[in-house]
């Protein structure tokens, strides 16, 4: 525990200073939120062309360089280069002690990450995909999320767990889950869903600075997304939502894999003269109620796009909170666009029909404003 506060304390402080300066941070105050989007857009034209995968890799490299307590552990993160090639080249650069290939033992290596974090390391554990995270869920819930409270504040767990999530590539029922909503149910965790290059690049260091366990869900469809990214853009805040597109007629709440779809839907709606505001939740736990409610108070109509199965998805929590906190501001029932309640089928047309799509978001928006 002491190691955390000791030797590398300076590193941590530097990082905090940087966080405060970073242009891509998304402050909570309303007026500024729009500026954050502008900043994001600005970054996107002046920087270097990178993919989401590369942005994530660069964040990992930076962490490994900045903090010697950081190491990466997971299945095929080393020799193979990561099942999504995120960690490609890191083994060669940092060696097998810090880039650790594990056996197929999700519970053991996630739990070992918790243990190493307890001992003051800063492990980044990669679970290939959320589909296999169930095998480690006991460790995450009953140890990572619980130890601090259960020990009366003695043992914190500065662990980062990354995993891919989501459907859309015809890999069928067992490989297409979107279960981040479950993790967002667990007190003691922070749940991040980077959906932009800046967040892919910037969330990791902030997560590593966090004294408590942070889970990062990377939607599989995002890895090949590319765009311009300021090479200087580093840490971003976590815990706030961002308005990715301002609008006055309705609020579309999205995150991770649904953000791009929501933005496409907003484009289509604007052609019809409907100005949709698009919120990227960014952090699923804690949810940034303030940003959501402020938007709803302006637009009075809400669509939530969530790739989870509808019943019991995160969208339900967002809807419930809006009804609790902005009930009298609502002019129409909240619409949810979620995944159909079906194991995701292999067939392309069935998978497409099962998932939220720009067209279904547009249709929901029309119902909401209609």
């Amino acid at each position: 525990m002491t190691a955390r506060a000791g030797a590398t304390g300076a590193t941590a402080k530097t990082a905090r200073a940087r966080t405060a300066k970073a242009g891509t941070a998304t402050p909570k105050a309303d007026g500024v939120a729009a500026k954050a989007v502008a900043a994001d857009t600005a970054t996107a034209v002046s920087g270097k062309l990178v993919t989401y995968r590369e942005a994530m890799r660069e964040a990992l490299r930076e962490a490994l360089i900045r903090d010697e307590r950081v190491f990466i552990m997971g299945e095929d993160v080393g020799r193979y280069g990561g099942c999504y090639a995120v960690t490609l080249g890191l083994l060669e650069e940092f060696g097998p002690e810090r880039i650790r290939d594990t056996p197929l033992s999700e519970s053991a290596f996630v739990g070992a990450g918790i243990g190493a974090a307890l001992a003051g390391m800063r492990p980044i554990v990669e679970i290939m995909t959320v589909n296999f995270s169930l095998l480690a869920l006991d460790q995450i819930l009953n140890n990572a999320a619980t130890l601090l409270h259960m020990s009366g504040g003695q043992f914190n767990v500065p662990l980062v767990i990354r995993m891919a999530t989501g459907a859309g590539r015809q890999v069928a029922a067992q490989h297409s889950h979107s279960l981040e909503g479950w993790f967002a149910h667990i007190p003691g965790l922070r749940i991040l869903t980077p959906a932009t290059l800046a967040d892919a690049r910037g969330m990791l260091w902030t997560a590593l600075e966090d004294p408590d366990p942070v889970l990062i869900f990377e939607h599989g469809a995002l890895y090949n997304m590319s765009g311009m990214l300021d090479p200087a853009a580093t840490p971003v805040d976590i815990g706030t939502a961002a308005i990715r597109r301002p609008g006055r007629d309705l609020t579309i709440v999205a995150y991770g894999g649904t953000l791009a779809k929501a933005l496409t839907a907003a484009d289509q709606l604007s052609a019809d003269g409907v100005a949709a505001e698009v919120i990227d939740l960014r952090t699923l736990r804690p949810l940034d109620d303030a940003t959501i409610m402020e938007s709803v108070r302006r637009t009075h109509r809400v669509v939530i796009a969530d790739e989870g199965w509808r019943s019991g998805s995160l969208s339900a929590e967002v809807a419930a909170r809006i009804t609790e906190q902005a009930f009298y501001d609502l002019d129409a029932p909240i619409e949810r666009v979620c995944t159909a309640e079906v194991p995701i089928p292999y067939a392309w047309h069935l998978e497409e029909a099962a998932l939220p799509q720009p067209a279904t978001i547009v249709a929901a928006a029309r119902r909401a404003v209609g």
Partner: protein
Amino acid sequence: MTGQPRQPAATPQPASGDAAHRRELLREMVRIRRFEERCVELYSAAKIRGFLHLYIGEEAVAVGVCQALAPADSIVSTYREHGHALARGVEMDSLMAEMYAKVTGCSRGRGGSMHLFDTSHRFYGGNAIVGGGLPLAVGLALADRMRGAGRVTACFFGDGAVAEGEFHECMNLAALWELPVLFCCENNLYAMGTALNRAQAETDLAARAGSYGMVAWAVDGMDVIAVEHAARRGAEAVRGGGGPHFLELRTYRFRAHSMYDPDRYRDKSEIERWKARDPIDALAAQMKQHGEITDDDVEALEQGIAAEISRAIEAAEVAAIEPVEDLTRFVYSPRPA
């Protein structure tokens, strides 16, 4: 506690008795090989999508093991399952249609390459969670055991699965309850990019299984005759009430893990060494040497298979897809009226 004491393994039946049988083994292996080779082309043409895991190089395992199974026996498989399905007798048409995501596919297009199912062949499907099929096999065997069905459940899984907790729990449960499972561990030395010796402290997987007190052998998985022999011996012992048996089938995949895998982690020379032991070439050479097959025979066999594959593709091409309205059909069974 669950019944009969462990019996000595039954005397193995004579395996692969005649040339006709060997020709059949060869044909089955070639059939799997050619099927998958066409699948690669179809994947490039985007006719097949999603994950595609090839069995090329490992055909002797599926073909050899399936010889030992009766129609009433059950099979539990993995995501690398085309070989198991074909060797088991699942019709190639329904398999190809499944890869094409058509309603005529063996899973009506809902499963794809990783999730082939067929009740009529008691093929309990491909499982894409590593180790996830093992408990199903234990449960199928438990049911058989409780009913005294005299059936065997063959359960395929890879070397990688051996590291999962599920493996341990299932070995213990099967051994403790003396369940009629034939565990078939396809040790191809890699779990994706992770070599066995970088993943497991005990690399002798038959020894690992033996530590649960079950009979376990390591078998040359590139030799279909050896596989068949061992599988028959194991299956008969299991059927005779001898409790679970374990075969470690030492094999190798000639291709990458999946179509997404650039295969950076293996030496070309290692791959070449194993390719020199190609189970199809080996059997064919042996048969030729003994005059059991001619080049013309091989040619005829190849043509027959090519025709079967073409027919399967043609049928898949023109088959219908499940109507989108039926998306949520089969989430639940139809309710009793």
